């Protein structure tokens, strides 16, 4: 019996490393958060229409909050886009370059992107601190820094995803 089970064991794909599983879990959290933002955005727009026609009263915070959700979706969504390699670029032209040159340029490009994401974390964080007393126009209880915080946070998350991708690319391996 044991021999059979052992045989099956060896047929299985190698166990994913701790890091891979950690990243998969982390991606799932980002995915759930982004899906919630998307649903909330659709609901808030529909709620605005509902209030105007059925309740006959405009929701004062409706457009401002819808905009905030869009900002969040843009930045947290771009973490997802980074993970899926979905950002829009010019890779068509790069495809004509010889393989080695292409890889070298992509590594340089990845380094540049990481530097920019680092800058987004630093300056985004400064903006959050500078705006710590600013509030939304329609609802005074909402601080603008919560909205701005999407920029440094998403910058850090993209950095965290991009760094291992760069290492794998530099070592000439495919994305995990």
């Amino acid at each position, binding site marked *: 019996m044991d021999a059979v089970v052992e045989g099956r064991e060896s047929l299985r794909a190698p166990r994913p490393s701790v890091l891979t599983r950690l990243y998969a879990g982390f991606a799932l959290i980002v995915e759930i958060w982004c899906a919630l933002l998307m649903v909330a955005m659709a609901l808030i*727009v529909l709620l605005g229409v509902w209030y105007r026609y059925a309740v006959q009263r405009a929701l004062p915070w409706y457009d401002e909050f819808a905009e905030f959700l869009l900002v969040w979706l843009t930045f947290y969504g771009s973490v997802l886009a980074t993970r899926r390699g979905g950002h829009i670029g010019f890779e068509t032209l790069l495809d004509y370059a010889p393989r080695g040159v292409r890889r070298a340029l992509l590594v340089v490009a990845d380094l540049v*992107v990481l530097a920019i994401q680092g800058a987004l974390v630093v300056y985004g964080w400064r903006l959050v601190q*500078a705006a710590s007393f600013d509030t939304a126009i329609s609802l005074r209880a909402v601080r603008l820094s919560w909205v701005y915080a999407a920029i440094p946070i998403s910058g850090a998350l993209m950095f965290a995803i991009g760094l291992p991708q760069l290492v794998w690319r530099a070592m000439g391996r495919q994305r995990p």
Partner: protein
Amino acid sequence: MSLAVVGAIVVLSVIGVPIAFALIGAVLMALFVWGGTTPTVIPLQLFSGAAKFPLLAIPLFVLAGGMMNSSGISLRIINLASAMVGHVRGGLAMVNVVDSMFFAEISGSAVADVAALGSVIIPAMVKKGYTPAFTAALTSVTASLAIIIPPSIPMILYAVMAETSVTRLFLAGFAPGVIGGGLMMAVVYYKARKYGFPVDEAFSVRRFGRAFRQAGWTLLLPVIILGGMFGGVVTATEAAGLAVLAAFLIGVFVYREMNFRQLWAVTLDGVTATASVMMIVAASAVLGWYLTNEQVPQQFAAWMLHLTANRILVLLFLNVFLLIAGMFLHSAAAILLIVPIVMPLVRQVGIDPTHFGIIVTLNLAIGQQTPPVASVLLTACAVAKQPVGTVFREAIPFIICLLITLAIVTYVPAIPLFLPRLLQP
């Protein structure tokens, strides 16, 4: 200095930095090298570039389109189009044009159009004896009608950048869309006579009635989306919200072809598509801020007016410029980068911003079909598993149709502007 910034953007993009990051990186570099303002202005501009209410229509239309794809709506549209025009010689090819025009009315993006309709109609046409290359070319080119016929994501982007009304722009897109579609059907008819394309099925009222009933709920979608917007009941963003609700209800409760798994996948694809476009929107606000500080749009207008103030020549120049830009840039990126720079010139020469919006979108529709960067053509080639070169050769007559439409629209402003003037004076 501004030239160095533009140069940095080109270099960064060519080595493979995504456009959004190339824009941020170039401005960041300029601020480090030449000083001036603190770089904290960059996240601030990123925020204000993305926080615009009309832009909310983008994720909502993308989501609605995705839901419609996975709810069996595309198949029903093809059935209906086939019952309508399948009896003409070259029937299925005609169906391809008609269903693209209809689908364009509920989806905002040409790539979505190819992916949704192409996967059904390309195999069907090949089975009937059309060559795969012709099939792919036709599917690709008709899909580009999607960005001229409302709702259209490039039009939303243009309206935000040019500070004009999305609804007016949508209204203006109808007539050019119909002209373009009509010209393509004429080409298909000519080719069908010449090469003896097959007839699909004889026309029958019963078949038409059945296809019409099956498509019933789908036909309601353009009524909700366009009627609500053009009737002045809702804004474009709200119409997009209603489209999501309608697509959800139809997919889950009427056709019952959509489950949680599909909804989840569609939502995340929508998030990724939205974020990739919106990051460029946000980043282009950073670049826009920098270039406006440097007075680049004004200088460009002055330089151009120095050469000529003749509206016809300016329009010709802008068309050539946009066509070339469209060949190399993704349509969203082209709009976000070019429109803010040329807008002062457009206004000074007295071109209606709505009219110019249609010219821009038509140019980019052509750019989606022309290598090296041809997003829609490449998607069609991938679906049909055909090499780009052969498909592009088959697409040339149809690209000429789009060029003729462009010429008509450029020099007869009354054609695009008739509907907006009538309904929204």
